[in-house]
């Protein structure tokens, strides 16, 4: 049975969720039940030469924790004036909680991150602590106590902040985005080429250089290969590049007018893709060199965008016109048990599995005019879905970050096609690209 939440009801439930009520949003399902921790983060002080870099450190630390989407960040305007730097600074009054000035109103924090930076012979030494404030003893409260050694400069301060934030995030079971990369299409050089950048938009550089049309990338699970659709031989065919160094791998395309939209199997050994070998595009599988070609789907419609469930290599979602306009379907990897996931209204495309293997992101025009795409999130088992964007331009190609909380997508909301990230609840919206037109991102570990 397909159930759908109306937007106002969703908003009400989201608000309820924020106050640790039982989750009804699908996003709530994803990030786990029990409510988000309310985290307070002090302004770390630095001694000696370290003092000059604390502004950078504190800004990076707070931002990383906020953007993780794991926490309800307690506003600094309510903090007590006396901020602890080490466990010695705590003076439990002898009640149920060691620091009611932090865990009670107005701060109401459940956890406190604090520490300081020392200058030890020119090395930036960071002391970082995480306390669970709902404990009655300092010993019981200590969740993390770590030391980090960095270079005595802004880069070192920033790095220390990233590492401490990652450790806090990992403690709460969240994945980190540090080191992850986004592959995308950019035409800023005059032709549509493969590009790559860090998760936060830094270090953008070009990967393919054939001055043709290169579109629709997919990255292997280990991040070592990017497969995409290229016109360098005149017609859309599949190319595979090594991400470290850009060397082209050999892939034997079937002799068809279109071979496109490749996607890797979870073990990285197979490629699923769309091919017009039999007439209309259908779903095929081969090894990553093109051997063992096997036809998967069997219809007379255009079918494309196969995506393998990361938790179940025998299950695919894909896009098909077999019931009319393009819709998102699911089937087994042997082509059997085909079911339509979207309800047939509008047009649906760009499905992407969540790392949990139970949810998908996709683009849909439901509720809007043709071409007016929005990002949706669906629980596959129940078919319940949430609408994550609301016609701020066209919003397409949503892809989960490895942390399963962030997503990257393409949007023309700024007036040109650019790449944006956000948390699945719509917060932490960040624009990553500016030059040229940029689209079709995929996120790799």
């Amino acid at each position, binding site marked *: 049975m397909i159930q759908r939440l109306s937007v106002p009801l969703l908003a009400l439930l989201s608000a309820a969720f924020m106050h640790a009520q039982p989750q009804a949003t699908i996003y709530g399902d994803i990030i786990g039940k029990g409510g988000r921790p309310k985290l307070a983060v002090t302004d770390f002080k630095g001694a000696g030469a370290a003092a000059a870099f604390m502004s950078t450190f504190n800004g990076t630390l707070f931002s990383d924790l906020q953007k993780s989407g794991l926490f309800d960040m307690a506003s600094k305007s309510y903090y007590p004036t006396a901020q602890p730097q080490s466990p010695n600074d705590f003076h439990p009054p002898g009640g149920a909680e060691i620091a009611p000035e932090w865990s009670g109103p107005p701060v109401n924090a459940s956890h406190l991150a604090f520490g300081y930076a020392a200058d030890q012979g020119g090395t930036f030494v960071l002391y970082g602590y995480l306390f669970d404030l709902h404990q009655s003893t300092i010993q019981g409260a200590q969740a993390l106590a770590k030391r980090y050694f960095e270079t005595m400069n802004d880069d070192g301060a920033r790095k220390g902040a990233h590492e401490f934030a990652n450790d806090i995030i990992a403690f709460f079971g969240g994945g980190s985005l540090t080191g992850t990369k986004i592959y995308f299409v950019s035409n800023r050089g005059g032709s549509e080429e493969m590009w790559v950048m860090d998760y936060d938009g830094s270090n953008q550089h070009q990967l393919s250089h054939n001055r043709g*049309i290169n579109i629709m990338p997919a990255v292997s699970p280990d991040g070592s290969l990017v497969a995409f659709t290229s016109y360098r031989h005149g017609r859309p065919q599949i190319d595979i590049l090594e991400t470290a160094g850009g060397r082209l791998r050999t892939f034997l395309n079937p002799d068809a007018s279109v071979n496109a939209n490749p996607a890797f199997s979870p073990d990285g050994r197979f490629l699923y893709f769309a091919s*017009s070998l039999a007439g209309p595009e259908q779903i095929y599988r081969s090894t990553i060199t093109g051997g063992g070609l096997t036809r998967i789907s069997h219809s007379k419609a255009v079918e494309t965008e196969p995506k393998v469930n990361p938790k179940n290599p025998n299950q695919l979602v894909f896009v098909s*016109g077999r019931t009319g306009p393009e819709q998102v379907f699911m089937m087994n990897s042997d082509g059997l048990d085909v079911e339509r996931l979207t309800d047939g209204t509008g047009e649906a495309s760009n499905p992407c599995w969540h790392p949990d293997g139970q949810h998908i992101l996709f683009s849909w025009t439901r509720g809007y005019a043709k071409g007016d795409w929005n990002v949706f999130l669906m629980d596959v088992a129940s078919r319940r879905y949430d609408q994550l964007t609301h016609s701020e331009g066209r919003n397409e190609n949503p892809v989960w970050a490895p942390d399963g909380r962030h997503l990257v997508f393409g949007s023309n909301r700024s007036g040109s096609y650019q790449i944006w990230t956000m948390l699945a609840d719509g917060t932490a919206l960040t624009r990553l690209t500016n030059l040229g037109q940029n689209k079709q991102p995929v996120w790799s570990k």
Partner: protein
Amino acid sequence: MLKMNSRGAIGVMVMMAALAVGCKKNAPVAPAAPAPVPTTGENTNPGSMGRPTIVSFTVEPTTVERGQSATLKWSVTNATSVIIDHGIGSVDVSGQRTVVPADSTTYILTASSENGSTSARATVNVTVPAEAPEKAPRAKEGFEQQIGHLQDAYFDYDSNDVRSDAQTALTADAATLKQIFADFPSATIIVEGHCDERGSAEYNLGLGDRRASAAKDFLVQLGVPSDKLKTVSYGKERPVCTEATEDCYQRNRRAHFSAGQ
């Protein structure tokens, strides 16, 4: 010998005839004058008494259209040889001959004997029927120029059906293509498939491919060689316009032709 010329002989005969009439009864019958003895030598043949004469030399009708026939007629006397030019040659002293001149022609008949020769003319006017001016030889246009004459075929949304206006365009294109391949036997032509910008780029790659294939199949059924047409889908990657209007959307939903490698 008594040499009498014809006049003298006739005189004697007249005199004798008169005597015969007046002296019928007892007149003594005068002995008949001796018949004139033919003399040998010239003027012995009563027919050959002068130079050849072309009694008549005509052609009918005197005006014909090219391809029609006319008849020469002639009658000649006192000739031992009658010749007509324009390849007709030696003929009898009288007769007729059918001729089919390609252009206005004057025939000359020459009659001759030992007494001389004479000739006469007969002219046939040949008209050319009014016809379209002969076409200037077809200038062979350049390859790109000829491709420029190929019309696009347009499609409905999310469809690759070749609707009737597209059939009209492709039917004209079939003729143009055959001419192109006759002029440039080693050429290939690309049939491109395009979509408007509203569907997803991924699905439109497939839909553009369907459109290119449908256009190609239609052309092949009209006799355009299949191996000279290559299909390429551009999905929505190469629009001809970018306005968000129905008119622009339709202009993009097309099969289009371009030069092959």
